[in-house]
């Protein structure tokens, strides 16, 4: 039988996972809206962000309640602290998905732009990172979390590549510079989503091992570090 406060912690886990599920869907639907030039879908994503915001507040209140009333220690303390931080990251990812939806809505009213198709790979990678970071949380799986950390470098590389491509498109077609700025913005938003997924993965590592691995990724995987340069 679970003690009464363990039930509160289980409940908190359910809440953060449901926030994760909504945010994952928001990201996926914002990219779908872009690809299909579907402004209605984009509007849905934008308005659903309010749901993300209110769930974020609820989760924060639950965390504060658990800290104030039950003074969790050890693994339970790390869990509540990790949730408090992930909560911020997930809410931020929700905002970024909503930004992408706004750009998608704008672009849906413009003539089709070729470069959109090139988002495929990076969007897939970012969504996989988000999914993995949440799975790592559900299963408290350090190895999965570390895979997310490794994938972030690849997303950074692809984002840089995308920037170069965007610049070359602008040079060829300067009339549509404004539209290409939207492309750049989407690309940047995707990269930031990946950064937030990385934060979540770092929090999972903290949760499992008690080790804070932020700001030390180069020590932690020297191979990746040299490859990036």
């Amino acid at each position: 039988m679970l003690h009464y406060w363990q039930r509160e912690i289980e409940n908190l886990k359910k809440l953060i996972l449901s926030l994760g599920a909504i945010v994952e869907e928001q990201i996926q639907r914002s990219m779908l809206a872009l690809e299909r030039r579907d402004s209605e879908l984009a509007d849905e994503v934008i308005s659903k962000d309010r749901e993300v915001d209110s769930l974020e507040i609820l989760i924060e209140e639950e965390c504060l309640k658990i800290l104030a009333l039950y003074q969790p220690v050890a693994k339970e303390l790390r869990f509540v602290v990790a949730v408090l931080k992930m909560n911020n990251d997930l809410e931020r990812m929700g905002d970024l998905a909503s930004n992408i939806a706004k750009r998608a809505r704008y672009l849906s009213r413009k003539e089709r732009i070729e470069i959109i198709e090139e988002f495929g790979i990076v969007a897939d990678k970012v969504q996989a990172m988000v999914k993995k970071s949440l799975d790592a949380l559900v299963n408290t799986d350090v190895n999965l979390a570390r895979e997310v950390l490794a994938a972030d470098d690849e997303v950074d590389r692809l984002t840089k590549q995308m920037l170069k491509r965007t610049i070359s498109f602008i040079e060829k077609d300067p009339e549509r510079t404004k539209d290409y700025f939207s492309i750049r913005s989407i690309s940047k938003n995707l990269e930031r989503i990946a950064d937030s997924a990385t934060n979540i993965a770092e929090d999972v590592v903290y949760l499992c091992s008690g080790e804070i691995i932020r700001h030390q990724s180069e020590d932690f995987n020297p191979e990746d570090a040299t490859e990036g340069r």
Partner: protein
Amino acid sequence: MVDIQADSKVKVHVENMNFYYGPVQALFDINLDIPEKKVTALIGPSGCGKSTFLRTLNRMNDIIDGTRIEGKVMIDDKDIYDPMTDVVELRKKVGMIFQKSNPFPKSIFDNIAYGPRIHGVKDKNKLMDIVESCLIKSALWDEVKDRLEKNAMGLSGGQQQRLCIARALAINPDVVLMDEPASALDPKSTLKIEDLINELKKDYTIIIVTHNMQQAGRVSDHTAFFYEGRLIEFGATEQIFTKPNQKQTEDYITGRFG
């Protein structure tokens, strides 16, 4: 903040209550509505009146000479200080658990059967049913079911306290008052009592005095903070422990006095 009125029915209503030990006033103008089937914690420094207040709810102070009460204490809309009130019936309805476990020097079975017997239950099987269900409710059954005829004094402190809870439940109360029920117990027994309180609130209104602020936070739904005989603040425990409205409450729960 939780709206107590909307959250659940009021079980105990206290209005303009003053209480005196001889010439000394111990409680000043207390107004409080205690919700049904919830755990309400009474906290505050020693001498703040929280235990005196608890004892006014089943007229335990009547047995102290020279005490006097003004105002109203209503349980289920009946004034318990009405001259027509049957105090024995009242204490049947409002059970009490004390700081130190106080089992009778009798068998485990007889401890629990004691109350029902003096209230007229004679049938052996019926008594056995009561004993079993109360021991199950107080989470003691598995530990004692094979030695119900053994003397209760042989139980550990934590077991004795759970036995006292079973004994209080045997007369089928609505309200259970607890005066520091876990302060003499080790952490593990304390945890059992706290889990038990959390189970019991499904069926009973529980009012608990505790010196242990963390315990109040852990077990209660609502918290009343007393200071120098006055009720300073009453609210949802979550609110009291995260954003109290009164500075005195804040100072007490953060450990600046008390």
